């Protein structure tokens, strides 16, 4: 197609245009409004007015740094667990799945067909204090007598991990599936053990998938609120719960907005650090 040849310089912009336009209109505009709201002050009864209330941001950090930290920690733990659980699973599908690969992928997202609330309630039943799972844990000694799994930070992290598994597993699969098996065979021909072949060939080649999965899990998990609400106590409240409260219960829209931007800033800083550590090319391509 001569058009693209001649207009090579234009190609990237043409490719970007539709998607970015969509995001510009339906994300940036609302985000702009949100930014405007975050700098308002007043209260719901008398109304809000825009007056460069940077204090909202300072307030946010000062009062809710505990929930912010907790969100980062929970999301981080959930990401690590999701990675540990999903990697072998994605590996198995990619290398051993054969013609059933697509079916197995659909099964990974199957839990999403029954909605967040229903599957969390199902876990509530499975992990009930007098249920079989907790019973086994108590017998084996992982839990003390009268110990419980629900209404703890363990339950919240486990819930987040479970709900974000597909976001880790699918990108991992994408990378693993693309690995040319001949490379691994070649390594083994050159006297590498299976473990060495994995560490030296497979793992590095799957890193883009690891990075992608990590991002797709951590970023949304940091803002999650539903797991803490259903599986935790006030001691497990995350920043997402604070934002829900500010917006819905207290109708304090400037606080909700400034807290949201604070969370986004924290996430972006963490991504920047992450990019520095692993090398930006893996991140941005």
């Amino acid at each position, binding site marked *: 197609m001569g058009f693209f040849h001649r207009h090579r310089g234009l190609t990237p912009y043409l490719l970007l245009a539709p998607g970015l336009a969509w995001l510009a209109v339906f994300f940036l505009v609302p985000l702009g409004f949100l930014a405007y709201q975050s700098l308002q002050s007043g209260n*719901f009864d008398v109304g809000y007015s825009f007056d460069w209330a940077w204090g909202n941001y300072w307030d946010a950090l000062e009062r809710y740094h505990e929930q912010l930290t907790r969100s980062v920690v929970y999301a981080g733990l959930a990401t690590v667990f999701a990675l540990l659980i999903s990697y072998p699973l994605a590996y198995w599908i990619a290398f051993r799945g054969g013609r059933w690969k697509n079916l197995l992928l659909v099964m990974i997202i199957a839990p999403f067909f029954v909605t967040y609330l229903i599957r969390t309630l199902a876990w509530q039943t499975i992990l009930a*204090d007098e249920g079989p799972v907790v019973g086994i844990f108590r017998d084996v000694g992982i839990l003390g007598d009268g110990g419980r799994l629900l209404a703890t930070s363990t339950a919240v992290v486990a819930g987040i991990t479970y709900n974000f598994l597909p976001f880790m597993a699918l990108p991992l699969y994408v990378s693993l599936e693309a690995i040319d098996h001949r490379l691994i065979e070649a390594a083994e021909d050159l006297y590498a053990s299976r473990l060495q072949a994995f560490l030296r060939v497979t793992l590095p080649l799957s890193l883009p998938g690891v990075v992608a999965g990590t991002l797709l899990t951590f970023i949304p998990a940091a803002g999650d609120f539903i797991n803490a609400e259903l599986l935790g106590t*006030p001691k497990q409240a995350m920043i997402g*719960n604070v934002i829900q*409260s500010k917006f819905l*219960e*207290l109708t304090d829209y400037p606080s909700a907005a400034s807290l949201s931007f604070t969370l986004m800033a924290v996430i972006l800083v963490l991504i920047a650090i992450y990019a520095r550590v692993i090398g930006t090319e893996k991140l941005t391509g």
Partner: protein
Amino acid sequence: MNDMLTRDELLRRAALGAGLLSMPGLLAACGGGNGGSGGKRELAKTMRFSNWTYYMDVDEKTKKWLTLEAFKKEFGVDVKYTEDVDSNSQFFGKIQGPLSRDQSIDRDLIVLTDNERFLATVIDKGWAEKLDKDAIPNIENLVDVQRHPGFDPDREYSLPWCSGMTGIAYNTKLTKQPVTSMEQLLEDKALKGKVAILNSFADTLGLVILENGDDPGKITDDSFSRALDRVQAAQDAGQFRGITGNSYTGPLASGDLLACVGWSGDIEQLHLDNPDLTWVIPKAGGMIWTDNVLIPKGGDAYTASVFMNYIYDPEVAAKLYGHIHYISPVKGSREALIKIDPETANNELFFPTEKTLSQVHLVDPAALKNQSYNEQWQAVLGV
């Protein structure tokens, strides 16, 4: 003559008698476009009604809403019924955007609870249309206690849909002794870690305020602080397994919770599957809440009013509330129900006697609007 009413329908309605359509209402309905009280007084073809779940009687075989079908048969109005109110704060969060910009939210009737601030806020902000009282002569059937609520003293904008009670739910088998007071719930060590309270402060703090001997209908800074501190102390002592919304029902059913603050309607349903679960009004008193209908700005006030008038007929109300098992605000509905379903009519939870009603209290609407109280309560919730 308004062509909405055929001669047959008129005759049928006259035959029903007993206050269904008094003369003024009849004349008004015939008024059509010429006068009335100024606004449109024609019945619309459809009415859009947003409500909570389980608040309308449904026939599972035909998937029809019985009361709405009956209304349609009689008045020719098709009610588009959606059960999309699942939380006062969330529904309010959704409608405040359009309403604050003077836009219609495409609904004629919505339902909000009187024990959260949002009902009063919608009225205060002028986001509700006035009821067309001329079209609701049956408003006389409204029970006395609901006639002059704090948020709408002259019942100009709202009417009760149904009420429920908040009390203590507990598992008779697993608790060593009956749990009949908030003191037990908050401070009994035997229940430690297996208790939950509700995340709405009218429900929970209302009960604690009663336990403290104060009046939840007139909350002062003192009575509020006393109750709040008591709850915070229990929280710090690890008494609670959680502070929940409706999700206390699962753990209660499974035995993870021994006792909790809960709503009468829920426990009645849980009891059917697990007879060990029971609900009581605490000795110091319980709370009562009422879901009220409102006509949001842009909604068809006349059609909505005619509908509410239909509901407030004791015969209609009997069938509706006998089915949904929530407390009816319509005088005479219990008597009407006894003829068809005496068992339900005599159930204290659905048709409480005067004695029961005297034990439950309404929350102070001013307290609900107090931003400081709300913030302090949210802090207890960890946010």
